[in-house]
Every structure is written in C-alpha cells, then in structure tokens.
C-alpha cells in the first residue's frame, strides 16, 4: 500500500500537486486497476470516504487520464472504460435529470461508486490488520519437535457359529468346493501308523511281514503304498525302541518282519 505514501497534502503548492500527479502516472503499472487508482485519488480529498465528492473525484480521474494522454502514456483499456463511465456520471450529476431516461439517477450511481470505494478501502484495512496479527511461525510457534502419531491398525477376526458349523460340514462332505491345495491324501502319518500298529502287534506272536499290516486302501496305488509302508516302518522302529516288538530283516532288500517281544 505504497499508494498513500506517494500522495502529497493538498495544502501544498500547485507544483507539488502536479509532481504528485506525474508520479501517479509514472507508476501507472503499479495500480491494481482503475478502482485502486480512484481510491488513491479519493484519499487526496482528505475526507472520509463517506463524505467524498464523487463529482470532484470524477474530475480528478478524468484529469489524470488527460495528463496521461498528453504524456503519451498508454493506459489499459479498463482505465479508459472507467474514464468514459465517469464522464457519463459527471454529466448525469451536473445536468438536471432527464425524465425520459430510465435507470438509476446520477446520485444513486455516485453513491454506489462511493460505497464500492469504501468497500475496497475497508478490505485493505482489514488485510493490513490481518497481516499485522501475531502469526504462526513468526510471532507464535508450534511445538518444535512434534511427535508423529503412530497409527496402529489392529485387525480383529470374528466368526459366527453358523460359519463354524458350515466349515465343519464342508470338511465332512468333501464334494463341496475346495480351493486348490496340495493334497496329502496319499500320505499316512507315522502317528496314524503307530495307532494302527500298536494294538495289532499285541497278537503278533510269529514273525510277520510288515507289509501285511498295511491297510486295505493303501496297497493298490503305489504312492499310497509307499507312504503307508514308510510310516509303518517308522512306527515299527518306534515300537521296537519302546520294547514292544522285535524287528528283523533276513536278507538285503528282503522283507522286514516284526513280532511281539518276549516270544523268542
């Protein structure tokens, strides 16, 4: 808002006034449009904007434009539009109202212009007050080392009884859809073999080929048979270690035989 600074008191000599006008013109690029210029000119009237003489203001503005033309300074179109409008306003203010002409009277137009200037001036003052407030990062400071809030997302799983039952039903009826998984159907665990073998070996009084203990469903398919054989063999070793059975193999690659311990 350097505009005010460039204005000289009206009480001073004509020369200084002319100097000021020239200073205005030289600075024409610095104006924020014709309204800004008008406001600056209005301030030179040294009165409250509410009592401003719009007629005098229109004259000042038109003089300014005239001077600029004399100095061959090119003014932007909106300055000239404003000049034309103010010339019209001036004539409306000076001449008696024409009853044939409709629209607002010259006084109403002048009052509207004065209000608009005041509105702008008030916002300029508000802006200056705003910028002069205690501002964050200049006068007022936040915490220097803020601790970022750690966001922890916890997922809580839930299930209903129905889902539980459905899951169990699905397991028991394998015809239902199952996602593609590596099946272990052709695998018998040692634990399982042990559970089978343990009760049966109590009656194994004579040496019996271990393969005779393999369950029915596990001897046809080679993969199943291999798994059953391996788990039964491991189980037999476990039982032998526990002292429940004896184990022997009479020839290399010959059949592995087992029998109950204590029948030697």
């Amino acid at each position, binding site marked *: *808002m350097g505009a005010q600074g460039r204005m000289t008191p009206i009480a001073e000599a004509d020369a200084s006034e002319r100097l000021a006008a020239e200073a205005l013109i030289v600075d024409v690029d610095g104006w*924020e*449009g*014709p*309204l*800004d210029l*008008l406001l600056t000119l209005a301030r030179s009237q040294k009165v409250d904007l509410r009592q401003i003489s719009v007629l005098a203001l229109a004259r000042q503005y038109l003089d300014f434009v005239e001077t600029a033309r004399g100095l061959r300074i090119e003014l932007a179109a*909106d300055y000239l*539009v*404003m000049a*034309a*409008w103010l010339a*019209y306003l001036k*004539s409306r203010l000076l001449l008696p109202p024409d009853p044939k002409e409709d*629209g607002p009277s010259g006084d109403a137009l002048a009052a*509207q*212009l004065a*209000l*608009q200037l*005041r*509105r*702008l001036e*008030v*916002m*300029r003052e*508000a*802006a200056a*007050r*705003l*910028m002069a*407030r*205690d*501002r*964050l*990062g*200049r*006068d*007022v*400071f*936040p*915490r*220097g080392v*803020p*601790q970022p*809030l750690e966001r922890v997302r916890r997922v809580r799983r839930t299930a209903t009884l129905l889902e539980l039952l459905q899951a169990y039903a699905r397991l028991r009826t394998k015809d239902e859809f199952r996602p593609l998984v590596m099946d272990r159907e052709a695998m018998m665990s040692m634990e399982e073999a042990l559970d089978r073998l343990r009760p049966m070996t109590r009656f194994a009084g004579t040496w019996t080929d271990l393969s005779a203990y393999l369950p029915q469903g596990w001897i046809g398919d080679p993969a199943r048979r291999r798994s059953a054989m391996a788990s039964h063999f491991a189980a037999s070793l476990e039982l032998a270690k526990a002292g429940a059975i004896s184990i022997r193999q009479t020839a290399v690659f010959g059949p592995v035989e087992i029998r109950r311990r204590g029948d030697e």
Partner: protein
Amino acid sequence: MNEPALFPAPPLTEQERMVEAILFASAAPVTVAELNARMPHGCDAAAALKLLERRYAGRGVRLVQVGAAWAMRTAPDLGHLMRRETVETRRLGRAAIETLAIVAYHQPVTRAGIEQIRGVSTGRGTLDQLLELGWIRLGPRRDTPGRPVTFVTTDGFLDHFGLSSPRDLPGLRDLRAAGLLDQPPSEEPSKVQDGLFDGDAMP
C-alpha cells in the same frame, strides 16, 4: 483400553495430563473428538481442556482454540526469542493479501465477488497461492446461474492468524452492521447492468 467398559475413567487431573501430553506432542491442532478417541474410554476431554487452559494461562506456552480443535502455542509476546525458529513464509503480494482478506470477511465468496470488490480481475495465481498455503479452500457452490464455486477460509488460516473462529475476525461485526460486507448486487451474472465496468451502462 481393550476392555474399556471394565475400568472407570481416570481422574480428571490425570485426564488433564493426558490432554497436555497429546496437545504438546502435536504441531497441528487436535479436535476434541480426536482427544476423546485417543484417551481411555469415559474421559471428558472438554473438561480436561478447561482445566489445562487455566493452568497455562499467562505461561510461556498457551492453549489456543482453532475452530473445533486445540493446540499449544508459544505466547505471542515471546516471539522475539524464537527468531531462529521463524519459518520464512513467501512474501504474499498485495493482490493475494487483499484477496485473502476478502475471502475471510465475505466468505463464502465467488471469484466474481472478489473481483467486484477489488475492481480488477483476479489472476489465476493469486487464488492458487492461497489454496496452496492451505488458507482458503473451495466452499459450497453458489446457487446462482452457472453455480459458481465459492471460497472460504480454512482452519489453517485460523491457526496461522491466531483466530479461534472466522467470527473472531477483527471488526467483523462493525463492518457487517455498516453494510460493507453485503454481497454486491452485481455479483450475479444475470444482473450485469449494475456492474460498474460493464459497457451497457455507458452512454
């Protein structure tokens, strides 16, 4: 915190400590709702805030309200001690400062409304700059032909200028009473003949 209902809320003095710690740790204002969400179940952040505000009154650090949120800030009279903490803000041009003031006092205001008050068209960069600073944001669309967007100020604006609410803007009440904040009639594009700069008013 896992079984919130099983435990009674901590005593208010303890809640005050909690609010103190949370606000202290955060550079940005924290809403009362957020405080309540972070404190144990059954806490009353608003009551704790009241206690805390009283405790910090006159201290080197103060409790300030920013919209619906609260923050801890150094006392303004001690700003000179913090010179090295000063963040160099880009100097705002006159157009941007004026535009900001107009948005603040006239919100929600359209771009046409801003231009009408300033008497010049608003460069795209001016609003962009204010949007980027996080001081203004888009408000509701105006219910006039073309449904133009409006601009309003943000909580970041309040925080930066130390205002609790847009109602705290200095002189707002007087300006409104003087009729200086009314929407100019010419803002509506359908009533162009009122516009000062429209050719049709010319002789």
